[in-house]
């Protein structure tokens, strides 16, 4: 799993590739919460287009980040869901809970 971070205007974009599982979801969680809680970025965007697998601990990290963003009134956005990521969110019935866009442009301007 690889994480890279970009900052565009008032948004932070996380590009994650590979598998998110118990071995690395703590790293994902820490990075996301740091950006939401500590840096208090108004818009945090998570690009999941290259995620091949995400387990329940990965979904839990997304849920925790979403709740943290709601607590401080910022936005936590998912973009470009890969097939496996969408499948897991549908299975969790969380698709409608998250703000999801197909493209990064939509995520930054929506």
């Amino acid at each position, binding site marked *: 799993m690889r994480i890279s971070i970009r900052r565009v205007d008032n948004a932070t974009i996380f590009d994650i590739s590979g*598998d998110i599982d118990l071995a690395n979801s703590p790293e994902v969680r820490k990075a996301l919460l740091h950006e939401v809680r500590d840096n208090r970025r108004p818009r945090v965007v998570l690009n999941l287009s290259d995620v091949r697998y995400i387990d329940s601990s990965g979904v839990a990290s997304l849920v925790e980040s979403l709740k943290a963003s709601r607590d401080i009134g910022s936005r936590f956005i998912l973009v470009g869901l890969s097939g496996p990521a969408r499948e897991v969110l549908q299975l969790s019935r969380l698709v409608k809970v998250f703000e999801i866009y197909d493209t990064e442009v939509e995520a930054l301007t929506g």
Partner: protein
Amino acid sequence: MSRDLLLKRGLLLKIELLSDPKALYVVRGAVERLAETVGFAAAECRSVVRAVDEALTNVMRHCYRGRPDQPIELYFRRPRRRSKGRLEKGLEVLLCHRGPAVDQAQLRGQKPGELRPGGLGLHFISEAMDAVDYERVGHTNRLRLVKYLPSEKGSSRGRRSERNADFHSARGQRHDF
């Protein structure tokens, strides 16, 4: 018949691993290939992989409390159930570990759509598999997961009854998957 022989009956593959989360990636790859070999379609392969991965994750997190050096065994076998005189095809997974017995009172699954971290794994497993049950034999915990090939499932009513019966029998002793 000895315990070892019983476990190996119909054996397709056995994996021994330590409770290091880095092993999950490797196991997922092996399980996906095995499920393909058994005859599952791509979506069903992903379901089986997800169920095994979540079960292992649960053992590593909750039973072994993050210790990365504890033993886990996975037996992949042909299901032993007969229906209408013939052996049903599919995949049975037996996950064995020697963690402490599960404290049932502190464990619960999460309802899908519920906005809180954790607890989704049990839901993933029960959605993926046709039968899920748990037993403790001596100092060993055994979680058994079974998925049948779609053409082998017979009437949905019969299969659902087995699934629910197994699931509910397991609920009393279940892990927080």
